[in-house]
Each structure stands twice: as structure tokens, then as C-alpha cells.
């Protein structure tokens, strides 16, 4: 190896262009310094996205803060399609007596709910004459136009005015008490549904009900404003079998306010009840609103009427 050498390697010269490019590296690198900002751009973008999401969430929250979501007041089955309307009075909340209705379940017919205390007729009425008309027990109530009922004859008109319905419906309550404050349920003459506040076994509130609205008729501080409860006594088999109860609400002008909405079915003692709350915050018409309850198989189980004052 002594007479050998590697002069070719030692004589290698870098092209002048390479050297110039290498000398210009500082200038090129200085010009490229803003790339440092690009390095952090992902963090900036992430932070911006977080801020945007938070802002949108807050905006959405404050926008819908006053509007109660439908699910919050829907019954146990949340497939509610009901519309909500306005009624600050919201004191047309009443129910039928379970004891009187419990005998009418066998034929899946109408659940009759006559006035429980006889004082209903004293309450102010919009159309007292219509509401006090006696109805024939066993008649099937006329419910909303799209009600899936087997008992409804096809010749019936799908849309009836509430007054017409009341005359045919044995479950229609003849009177309403629009001036009774909802915050004092104990002032009601006689709540006909189970009275959980005085009992040891209060009915369970609907899962979606808000704190101000206990959901069970007759509960203390029962109805928060803007909510009107419609309830009927139903066969206890609806609770045991899990069959759903649906309801359709017709406004005074005959239009469907809430159609084919799931009602909340609950059990109290040996009786069962179906209940539905109507948000009356956006209603525009005062008058008698009729709620028709019918079973999953289409049988009518009861009708309830409430006077809602806008």
C-alpha cells in the first residue's frame, strides 16, 4: 500500500455552482424563516377550531335557551311529533277519575270520564252549552284525521271541530277552569287522577319532563306555565303489556296541533293512566283543545279536553 495513493479523491473539487449555492444558504434560510409560523399553524388552526366550536355551542345554547326542546317534555316514548304552543294561563289541566273509568276497558272503547266533583260546570267556559251536552257512553270519539284507528269509519270526516267532537265524545270534560293557578294544585276541587303528593307512592314523572313540571297529574306544583296536561284513565294492561298510547290534539278551529304523538303511560296503584303534555307557548288560538288517546292497535282509549287561554 506504500506505493498506492488515493489522489483522485483528494483532487475532487466541488463545482463552483455547489459552492455558490452553499454560500447562499444563509440568505435562503433567512427568507424561509416565516416557515416557522407554518410549523405552528396547525396549533393555531386547532385553537381556532376549538374557539369556533365553543362559540357555536354557546350561540346555539343561548338561542335555544328559552325554547324547551320537545324531547324534554315528551312522554316516555320520544317519537313525539307534537307542535308546541303558548298559553301562560295553562291552568286547564285536569284529568279524569280513574275509578270511574276503570270499568270501560274491556271493549277497548271509550273511557268515560265524567266530572269528578260536579263543580266543573261552575267554571267559566267559552262555550258552556257545548261542553255541558251529555254524551252517550260507549261512543267512539272522533280523533285526528290520521289516527290509525280500526274503529273509525271511513265515512267520518277526518277533521272535526272540537265542539263537534265533544258532543260525540263521552270522555269530554264539560268544563274547564282556566283561572286556577297551576302553582296551587291543591286548590283544585278534586283531582281525579292519583294524587301522589299526599300519598307515599307518587307516580313517576315522565323521563323527559322538566323539574317544574312533575308530569303526573295532580302533583304539587303540577304544571309549569305553558304546559297543559291531557290525561285519561286506561286499562292497566297497557302498562303491563307495554303497548303504546298515542294521542292527537285538535285545536278549537279543528286543526291538528299534535298528531300521533306518544303519550306517557304510567301506573298508580291498581289504575293506569295515559298522559300527554301540550306545550302551549306558541299557540295562537284560545279555546278548547281536545286530545284523543288511542292505543297502538288503533282503539280509542279516551278523550280529554282543556281550555287554553292565550
Amino acid at each position, binding site marked *: 500500500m506504500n506505493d498506492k*495513493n*488515493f489522489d483522485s*479523491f483528494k483532487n*475532487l473539487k466541488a463545482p463552483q455552482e*455547489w459552492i455558490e449555492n*452553499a454560500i447562499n*444558504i444563509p440568505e435562503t434560510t433567512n427568507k424561509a424563516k416565516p416557515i416557522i409560523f407554518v410549523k405552528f399553524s396547525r396549533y393555531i388552526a386547532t385553537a381556532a377550531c376549538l374557539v369556533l366550536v365553543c362559540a357555536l355551542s354557546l350561540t346555539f345554547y343561548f338561542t335555544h335557551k328559552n325554547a324547551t326542546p320537545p324531547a324534554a317534555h315528551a312522554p316516555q316514548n320520544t317519537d313525539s311529533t307534537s307542535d308546541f304552543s303558548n298559553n301562560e294561563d295553562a291552568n286547564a289541566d285536569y284529568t279524569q277519575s280513574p275509578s270511574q273509568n276503570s270499568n270501560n276497558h274491556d271493549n277497548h272503547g271509550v273511557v268515560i270520564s265524567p266530572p269528578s266533583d260536579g263543580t266543573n260546570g261552575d267554571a267559566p267556559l267559552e262555550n258552556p252549552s257545548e261542553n255541558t251536552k251529555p254524551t252517550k257512553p260507549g261512543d267512539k270519539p272522533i280523533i285526528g284525521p290520521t289516527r290509525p284507528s280500526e274503529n273509525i269509519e271511513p265515512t267520518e270526516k277526518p277533521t272535526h271541530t272540537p265542539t263537534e267532537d265533544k258532543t260525540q265524545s263521552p270522555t269530554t270534560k264539560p268544563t274547564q277552569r282556566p283561572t286556577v293557578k297551576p302553582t296551587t294544585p291543591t286548590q283544585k276541587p278534586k283531582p281525579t287522577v292519583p294524587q301522589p303528593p299526599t300519598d307515599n307512592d307518587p307516580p313517576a314523572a315522565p323521563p323527559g319532563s322538566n323539574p317544574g313540571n312533575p308530569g303526573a297529574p295532580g302533583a304539587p306544583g303540577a304544571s309549569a306555565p305553558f304546559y297543559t296536561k291531557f290525561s285519561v284513565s286506561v286499562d292497566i294492561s297497557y302498562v303491563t303489556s307495554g303497548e303504546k298510547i298515542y294521542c292527537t290534539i285538535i285545536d278549537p278551529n279543528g286543526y291538528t296541533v299534535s298528531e300521533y304523538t306518544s303519550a306517557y303511560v304510567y301506573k298508580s296503584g291498581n289504575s293506569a293512566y295515559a298522559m300527554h303534555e301540550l306545550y302551549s307557548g306558541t299557540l295562537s288560538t284560545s279555546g278548547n283543545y281536545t286530545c284523543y288517546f288511542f292505543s297502538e292497535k288503533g282503539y280509542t282509549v279516551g278523550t280529554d279536553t282543556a281550555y287554553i287561554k292565550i
Partner: protein
Amino acid sequence: MADTLYAGLSFEQVVHNYNQTVVSVCIMRLKNWADAEDCFQNTFVRLYQNSPEIADEDHLKAWLIRVAINECNSHLRKSSRTVSLNEHSDQAVEFPHDQTDISWALMQLEDKYRDILYLYYVEQYKVNEIADIVQKKPNTIKTLLMRGREKLKSIYGGDCCE
């Protein structure tokens, strides 16, 4: 940054003084002018961006060689995943076959022997310095040197090179 000194030299002086060393390392490792240019530039970019604390010029030269070798290894690693279109191009470095200048024989050695022999015979580094540069044990360097010499002799003295 432009005023940063590397062992008392400005960046421009470093490029002028050590470009031959870096080019030799890159050519020795890559055997290709085009690839060598990339590693050449990357080596000086590293020097400029990292601004290492270098005590003297020996350290600076060793630093440049080590970085150049690492850049070449990275380049080879990346190029191993792709098929090069320049594999048979005229950019390949070919040294003339000479009985005295055996650079051509060195280029035919395996990489692990070529690095050590280059540092030992071309750059005139000692075993311990080579061990520091390639980050291996001195005994390993000695072994590689011995085996590399035998292989190199077999190349320039054998039938293959005649």
C-alpha cells in the same frame, strides 16, 4: 445568524475551506454527482441551522464528515424505497483504473469498509478519531481496516481489475 462563527470561521469560509472534504465524502458514499450535490448542500444547511459549538477546525472537519456521512446514509435509506431513474445515468462517478491511484478500487468496496479506509488513508485520521466519527469501538475500526485492506488488495491486484 449570518455572523455566526464556526471555530473562528465564517460560514462562507467554512464552505470554501471544507467543500472538497464534503464532496469527497459524498462521492465516496453515493458514487453519484447528483445525489452528492443534495447531500453536499444538506450538510452545510445543517451546519448553518444547527450552529454547533465547535472548538477548533479539526473538530469542525470531523463534524462535517460525520454529518455528511449521515446525510448520505439518509439519502441511501430514502432512495432504497424508490427506483431511481438515474441509476445508469452519466452522473455516476467513475475513477480511472490506475496502478498507483487506487481510488477506483476503493469505490468497489463494501460501504462499511469503504468509509473506514477512506477516513484512514484519504483523510488521514487515526483509529480513535475514526471511532469517534463513525461512533464505533476502536477495535471494530481496526478489524474493519484489516479486512478492508485485504479486500482492497484483492480488488486492485486480482483478476477482476485487470
